[in-house]
């Protein structure tokens, strides 16, 4: 499913739950279903700043290797060739149930997608899902910071992919 399709599906899903209690129950359930966050990444360097609750975000994996994503990213070192359409894999977690549920939603939209796809997600999905109050910059739960972080990863990986592509093209000339 593309991110656009996922968003459409989520919007329908939430629209079908009129009651606020049920909606939160659903968000919390989504959070419970989030894959366990790998304990080796529960480090300060993967913490997203500006949070009232704690939020962790790890990017890499899926062939990009277990590099330190907070620093420079060097996928080449992991010996990959066809990197242009490579996706970014995220792991994320929170100690608060609702934040974790919202993270699960963000993961559905952003996880395991290419930089191009991530950067192409229209930001108005937040309004469409009725999650404005949880995901605005002013909200100190860390989710806005997390989204910003996801975008920064996409930009960084996108550049790397571009360069590799160019390097490959040069070699093949």
């Amino acid at each position, binding site marked *: 499913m593309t991110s656009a399709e996922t968003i459409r599906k989520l919007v329908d899903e939430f629209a079908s739950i009129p*009651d*606020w*209690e049920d909606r*939160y*129950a659903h968000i*919390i359930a989504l959070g419970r279903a989030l894959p366990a966050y790998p304990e080796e990444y529960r480090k300060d360097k993967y913490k997203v700043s500006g949070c*009232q*609750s*704690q939020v962790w975000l790890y990017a890499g994996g899926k062939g990009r290797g277990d590099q330190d994503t907070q620093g420079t990213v060097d996928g080449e070192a992991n010996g990959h060739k066809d990197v242009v359409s490579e996706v970014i894999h995220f792991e994320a977690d929170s*100690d*608060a*149930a*609702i*934040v974790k549920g919202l993270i699960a939603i963000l993961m559905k939209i952003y996880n395991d997608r290419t930089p191009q796809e991530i950067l192409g997600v229209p930001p108005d999905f937040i309004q469409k899902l009725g999650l404005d109050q*949880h995901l605005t910059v002013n909200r100190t*739960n860390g989710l806005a910071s997390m989204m910003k972080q996801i975008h920064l990863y996409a930009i960084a990986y996108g550049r790397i992919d571009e360069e590799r592509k160019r390097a490959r093209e040069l070699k093949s000339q």
Partner: protein
Amino acid sequence: MNTSNVDAGFAPVAVADNALYVSALRNEFPILNQRVHGNVPLVYLDNAATTQRPIPVINATTDYLLHSHSNVHRGGHALAMEATRLFELTRSRIQAFLNAPLPEEIIYTRGTTESVNLVASAWGDDNVKSGDEVIVSEMDHHAVIVPMQMLCQRKGATLRVLPVLDNGTLDLDALPDLINNRTKLIAVNHVSNALGTINDVKSICALARPRGITTLIDGAQAVAHLKVDVQDIDCDFYVFSAHKLYGPTGVGALYGRAEIMSSMSPYQGGGSMIASVSFEGTTYNDLPYRFEAGTQNIEGAVGLGAALEWFGGLDHSAVAKHEQSLLRRATEGLSAIKGLRIIGNAPNKIGIISFVVDGIHASDIGVLCDEQGVALRVGHHCTMPLMKRFGVGSTARASAGVYTTHSEIDALVTSVGKAVRMLS
């Protein structure tokens, strides 16, 4: 939306509510009479963060702006004289409110935080030397801890900490041992914003005075709940913010004993705080102006004056009785929720209640209560060391104001109960 459980109305049934005064009071606060998240009645229990403003206080500022606004002092024209009169009138009102001996012992600041910073810099830089010690308490607000920490860092002094007991009271027995002949200052809050504890600051000052130790009392949470008398407390400095006293943001006061302040170096430089300026040398103005550089929050001062007048007109024994009964009701109601633990069980508390629930993050409770209209504050409440002391990262905090009703407390208990059920 399902709001049937939320009984946060202004129904005249609330017999226990000191009905007369609360319902009359609430008319002066239209902001309380609104619905949030589309459809749920607002239950504002974030009064320790900031209080709401009654109509007479809002009107006082508007009137000032419509009729009398001007910059104060040095102005010779009609508006300037009227604005100056109002500005200085509030100073006298603050003096009376704190029972300070002299009006020039009252300095306008942005609020508690700036007042503490002013003392830490202007008094601290001259009086705290390398090797000296400053005492703060484990329950102090960052507004006290951080400026004192910064002062100690600048000066090579040591910050010492008065510990908190399990019930949320200060361990006053530990104080004599903390004090020695290098102790220069004791800074402590009058009432804890995170726990509600009322501290016996008079005893602390009584210990400090004969030893020549300067005292600074953070009254941010006290002024709206206790009768404050700086001569009775016998402190050297007392600080508070107008916005926690039904007055404006951006204005507050520092009371400082004239004896100390008249020899204190200036803090910020600028207009009004000088007697004369030349490139060869500048001489500073007398109290209180030496500490009021530049244009002050004039309309804020006018609003604070109105707030003091409005607040002074309340029946304070009725208010205190009401707030205590709200606290009892909240304590009973919340205690009945399984897994809920109240942090801070001092015998003397104002209407603040901080709590955590086993296995549930306070932030989740905050979100779900908010959906039910109940405004709590969730977090460390600018008291991280205190959170650490109680082994929690954050708490959910409900705090009452003069206008809080028993039905609102019931709404609080209901909403927390529902949140806990949803999260279990």
